[in-house]
């Protein structure tokens, strides 16, 4: 994992590996974990007044992440971890051989998961927004008098009922993926997501 594009060791703790995730990505990641948890629980238990606020925060976070995917540090850019289908299949093959190829940014399996989670979250927050404007007579769409037909409103409600369950499943797969990768790559991914870099190869 040493082939960072522009390694700059200056100022780093002794024995630590090069920077993997920039400050934005790390704050984004853990804020998202907390906020999605709060959004999910407040939604499930119908604590509506707080739910929409948690939802807005999630919406803000993923919007910021989307922008960061174009202007952020190299490892954080979407371009860095959009892989061709061939490369993705090759990665899965190497994974099943228990000899996965190493990547500095997300590996192809992890990248798939990242896009999956971001798309799910975008759909969940958008449908929540539409449902709020149509059925709850609240929020920006209601305030701006956006006309929403019953058909669209019901569709948004349906999506907002189903996708959070799918999200839970996706999150479980994401965590499972990280556990498998931690073992296979002998790299402490959790530490990288907190401190920005792995301390040492374990």
């Amino acid at each position, binding site marked *: 994992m040493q082939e960072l*594009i*522009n390694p*700059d*060791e*200056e*100022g*780093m*703790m002794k024995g630590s590996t*090069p*920077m993997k995730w*920039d*400050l*934005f990505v*790390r*704050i984004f990641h*853990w*804020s998202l974990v*907390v906020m999605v948890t*709060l959004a999910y629980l407040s939604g499930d*238990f*119908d604590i*509506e*007044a*707080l739910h929409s*606020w*948690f939802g807005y*925060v999630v919406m803000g976070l993923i919007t910021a992440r989307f922008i960061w995917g174009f*202007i*952020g*540090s*190299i*490892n954080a850019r979407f371009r860095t971890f959009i892989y061709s289908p061939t490369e993705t299949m090759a990665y899965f093959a190497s994974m099943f051989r228990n000899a996965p190829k190493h990547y500095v940014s997300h590996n192809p399996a992890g990248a798939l998961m990242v896009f999956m989670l971001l798309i799910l979250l975008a759909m969940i927050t958008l449908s929540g927004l539409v449902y709020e404007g*149509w*059925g*709850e*007579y*609240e929020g920006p769409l209601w305030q701006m008098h956006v006309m929403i037909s*019953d058909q669209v*409103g*019901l569709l948004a*409600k349906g999506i907002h*009922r*189903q996708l959070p369950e799918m999200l839970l499943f996706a999150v479980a797969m994401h965590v499972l993926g990280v556990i498998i990768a931690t073992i296979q790559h002998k790299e402490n991914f959790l530490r990288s997501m907190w401190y*920005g*870099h792995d301390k040492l190869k374990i």
Partner: protein
Amino acid sequence: MISSPFLAVNNAGRMDIQQENTLKKIILLVALWAIPATAMAHDILGFPRHKGVEPVVNKKYSSSCGECHYAYHPGLLPSRSWKKLLEPKSLENHFGDNAELSEKDRLEVLAFLTENASETTWHFKRSVKITQSIPEDVTPLRISEVPYIKKKHMEIPREMVKDNPKVRSLAQCNKCHTEAVEKGQFSRTNVDIPNFRNWADLID
């Protein structure tokens, strides 16, 4: 390679670890607590709201209007609807029934209903939404025709309502909303449709 200022963060060397940790802590604290705290302040200070409709009671109203269905909370309709419903003529033909009242009782009930109608409160959430959802030039005579209430029940299949011998009509709010009568609470978390305990799985 490094041309954009944003890229600077790619190089850990630009900030020493201590500075970075402090910055991280500050941003984390702000991001994680400021926004929910504002939300809560908004909820508690700027917008104190109760979840349901106000569970007010009036003896005369309960005895006059609580025989054939539960005595609907006044906060479920705007006062113009209550006025129209309580005109002597409409009471004579009240959805096919006769709900006539003596003039004295009628005025007492009317006063109670209009004083507590949906638009008189701003801190009972459901009432506010009911008021907001009705166009100004419309006077619904049924709670079940109020757009907000209508939208909430659109997906409930016929066999759970009209064809359900224990419910029969959407007007029977209290048959499904177990905390409606006493607490004025209408939430999907405390609905129990007779004969369809597992309604949530069937509708979703």
